[in-house]
C-alpha cells in the first residue's frame, strides 16, 4: 500500500531532534511514548501525530486556535513544570480530532496535547478550565 510505504519512509528518515517524546504517553496509551508530527499541505490544517514505532497508528490533530478563536486552555502549574515551560510562547498546543463519519469530525478541547517547542517533550494535559469546553467539539466541515 503506497500510503503505508510513504509513512514508513518518513519514519525511517526522521531525525532524532524531531521526535516528540511523551514520557507519560496519552491517556489510555501510556506505553506509546514517541511520536513524529507529519503534515501534508493538502490536508491543512490537519496534522498527523504519528506513532514512531508503528506506521499504521496515528492521531489526527489540529491547532485549535483557528477553529476556536477564543480557546484559552488553562494549563495547570504541575504540567507547566513537568514540561519545563518558561513562558506561554514555549507551548505548542494540538487537540485530537475524532473522525465520526463522512463530513463529521469533533475535536477534544478538554485534553489538549501540550508540547514544549524547544525540547519537544509533550503531555496530554487536562486543562484546569476543562468544564468550559467540550470533549467532542464539532468541527465546522463543508457538507
Amino acid at each position, binding site marked *: *500500500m503506497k*500510503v*503505508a510505504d510513504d*509513512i514508513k519512509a518518513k519514519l525511517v528518515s526522521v531525525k532524532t531532534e524531531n521526535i516528540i517524546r511523551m*514520557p*507519560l504517553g*496519552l*491517556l*489510555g*496509551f501510556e506505553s506509546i511514548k514517541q511520536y513524529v508530527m507529519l503534515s501534508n499541505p493538502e*490536508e491543512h*490544517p*490537519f496534522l*498527523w501525530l504519528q506513532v514512531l514505532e508503528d506506521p*499504521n*497508528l*496515528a*492521531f*489526527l490533530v489540529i491547532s485549535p486556535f*483557528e*477553529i476556536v478563536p477564543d480557546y484559552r486552555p488553562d494549563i495547570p502549574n*504541575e504540567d507547566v*513544570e*513537568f514540561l519545563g515551560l518558561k513562558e506561554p510562547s514555549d507551548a505548542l498546543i494540538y487537540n*485530537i*480530532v*475524532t*473522525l465520526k463519519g*463522512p*463530513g*463529521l*469530525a469533533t475535536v*477534544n478541547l*478538554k*485534553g489538549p496535547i501540550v508540547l514544549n517547542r524547544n525540547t519537544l517533550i509533550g503531555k*496530554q494535559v*487536562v486543562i484546569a478550565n*476543562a468544564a468550559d469546553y467540550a*470533549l*467532542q467539539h464539532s*468541527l*465546522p*466541515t*463543508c457538507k
Partner: protein
Amino acid sequence: MLILSRKLNESIVIDGRIIVKVVRVDGEVVKLGIQAPMEVTVHRQEVYEEIQKNNKEALTRGRPSLPKLPRQLPTNKS
C-alpha cells in the same frame, strides 16, 4: 478496593511515595490534596475515563480521507 476512613487533615500513603490528604470537608464535598512524583499522573476518574475513551475512538489506522474545513477569512494581523 481498600476502604479506609480518614478525618480532616489525615492522609494515606500509596506505594511509599504518593500522599493523599483530606484537606477540607464541606458538606458532601471532600477536597483532597495529592502529593506525587512528576511521573505519576493524577486525574479525576470520570475525566480520565472520558478522555481515554475519546483517545481510543480517535486512534487512526492508516490514512482515511479527511473532511474539508471551510476556508478561513484572513485574520487581522495587528
